[in-house]
């Protein structure tokens, strides 16, 4: 039985220590906001924060999460209030199907924490998540809007 710190809460998870965090979150803890897209850290749909760093959870075994603070999409809004990125996403009507957006929002939140006023080049470098609907133009606009908010 592993103990994880997810979204500020200590939770127990019974899974093989080699199980990727993605599947511990989804299947063991029932937190399905974090998405499966590729399983090889290419698409970014499974992005969470580990100690504040945007990380692809499909490549992090449960055993490597000991003592780390994990934040998922479910943990961004505080007391029902969306964070700056989520609020900008809402105002800019960013998502289409929405499936990649959990990862996209986690990546953008980490970017803004590291660089409060990111340039387009910063966005290009940090936002490597795949969106197949093609929301990239709105993603860029919303990140700039959140930086100004």
């Amino acid at each position, binding site marked *: 039985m592993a103990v994880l710190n997810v979204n500020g809460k200590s939770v127990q998870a019974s*899974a*093989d220590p080699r*199980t*990727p965090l993605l*599947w511990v979150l*989804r*299947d*063991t803890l*029932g*937190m*399905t*906001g*974090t*998405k*499966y*897209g*590729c*399983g*090889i850290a*290419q*698409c970014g*749909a499974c992005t969470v924060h580990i100690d504040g760093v945007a990380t692809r959870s499909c490549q992090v075994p449960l055993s490597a999460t000991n003592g780390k603070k994990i934040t*998922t*999409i*479910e943990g*961004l*809004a505080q007391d029902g209030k*969306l964070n700056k990125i*989520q609020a900008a*996403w*809402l105002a800019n*009507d*960013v*998502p*289409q*199907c*929405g*499936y*990649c*957006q*959990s990862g996209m*929002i986690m990546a953008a939140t980490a970017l803004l924490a590291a660089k409060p006023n990111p340039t387009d080049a910063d*966005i*290009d*470098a940090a*936002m*490597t*998540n*795949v*969106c*197949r*609907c*093609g*929301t*990239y*133009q*709105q*993603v*860029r606009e919303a990140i700039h809007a959140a930086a100004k908010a």
Partner: protein
Amino acid sequence: MTIQTSLGRRGFLASTTAAGAFSLGFSFPWASAQAAEVQELNAWVVIHPDDKVVIRIARSEMGQGTLTGLAQLVAEELECDWSKVTTEYPTPSENVRRNRVWKNYSTGGSRGIRESNQYVREGGAIAREMLIAAAAAEWKVPAAECKAADSKVTHSSGKSATYGQLAAAAAKLELPKEVKLKDPKDWKVAGKPLKRLDTLPKLTGQMTYGIDIKMPGMLTASVRACPVHGGKLKSFDAAKVEKMPGVKQVLSIDNNAVVVVADTYWNAKQALDKLPVEWDVGKLGEVQQDQITAMLKEGLGASEAFVGNKAGDARAAIDGAAKKVEAVYSFPWQHHVNMEPMNATARFTREKCEVWCGTQNGEAALAAAAEAAELPVAKCDVYKTILGTGFGRRGRADYVRQAVLVAKQMPGTPVKLIWSREEDMTHGTYHPTTMCKLTGGLDKDGNLVGLHVRISGQSILAALLPQNLQNGMDPAVFQGFANGGPEAAYGYTVPNLLVDHAMRNPHLTPGFWRGVNTNQNAVYMECFMDELAEAAGQDPLAFRMKMLKPKYAAVLKAATDKAGYGKPLPAGHFHGIAQIMGYGSYVAGVAEVSVSADGVLKVHKITAATDPGHVVNPAQIERQVAGSFVYGLSAALYGEITLKDGAVEQTNFDSYNVMRIDEMPKVETVLAPSGGFWGGVGEPTIAVAAPAVLNGIYKATGKRVRELPLMHQELKKGA
């Protein structure tokens, strides 16, 4: 799974959706609550006592925004307060039980709005008239003295009542037989850039996609089908993995796939990866990519071909022309790469089969479930979720069939079947592969007097819908080349024209892929049009304009005007243009590209114009246009599926790349609706991205790129 509801005499039974949702521990954001007080006015409109309006949406939402657009059309006629609108999906089986009152569930071909606008608007208008009639009866005044607006009916005396107050009485009235629809120029809700209705749960992780379904006692299945399409399962050694952690059952389905069912997806996948399997692939296992290329090349010169469009005598006109131009293009197989891999959850008993999934065609999914379950349709149900994209792939119900076949071997246990990305990549229904030989004849003044377009290659209909072939011909192959019609007609007037198709069908399953055959047909025609213009010594725009029919010309003019075509560009930047008609809409694009000295392509901007007749939500159209270019350019840059030993070689994003934000051009959308018809939006513009970019590349480099994807092309100067 039952909930007691009393919904008036046309009682809404699709509340099983809500019942299923609540009893299964997940909740659709739009699930209707307090059903006992809810009033169904007609199939499309449900009104709650607190004035909340539930609009029923039969088509599937997969990111294209049709849910919001259809709700706008209903709300416009209903005259309700938009802030009170929510939506829900009636189940496909409910549609069957109610004599298909919601008509077509199929969500493909950009048909969501263009094919249902009339009856959904009538649904809203009928409900409005019933609310007015209820108020008039209550007040004992003529209905003509009452008006509906903002979810209220008001009498000229000043009396007023809310829709919530009137709904119970209105629901008892007969449905009016005829209603008058508003002129689009009077629209207040439709036609406006409203935000989508379903955004918030996508920002917080609360949206339930098919892959997120949870149920008590549910198990998860991982599947591996024969890597060669059409191959069979020979044997597998279940004993080798049965004792692995979490494994509940190891089984086969349809004699072509093995499945491990376990407590979690990870445990199922781990065991499946270690499961020894032998396949029987026969001769198909010897098929290599160069054989496919040879097969298509042979078709380019074949004497027999299906004729899709013909005027005059193209061959004679070309033979007699002052100048002859010829080129051969080719287009590879491409994968959909839906963000959410294929999945479905099924629960089977001998009395009932239920499926939860994202599908582009709920009724096809229901039929597939019934067939796989060997139960009557009346004993089956499909509960639709939002799709983590569809792009045509989720119109096919093969994954639904698989989930039911697994659940059938474990009666009573809900089983969620998830394809790995590798399974998804290798078992797609791929954008068909074709080649095209174009031959044009110019007279001494540079006019196009004859054109022969020979397409050789794969037919989607032959593989998936053979009943739709016309004497063996696949009419869909000619999208964009059709001789008239409201769907995908050829835009140029050419006195002598022949467009024909030598059907060549390799074994890899083709399928509908956003834009379908307009993608390659636009590359073939629009790139060759630039080749012809050059041979004629004319500007590509002017050359096209001489031959384009009015609506095509207008939209191309709108795009080129906005882009500043012909005006100076930054040093090293070049414009390429393209146009087509698809899905009932006229579209054109201008790509601004540069190619660096070492051959690096950059697409700076695409300016796109679209004439879809009517505009239901301009903000969502802009998003669809920009999104279509991400999809189209991804394919143009990287999209290529190849065969080795009969099987697909690409397995995941590392071997099948897609565009990220750093390659995204700025997209500017020009809406040029000319009214009087309803065209689609999700697909039409995709087709102009690749040819506009390729035409720009030629101007930048002098290289005609006639094969995709671009990643294989050397664009360096002098190379």
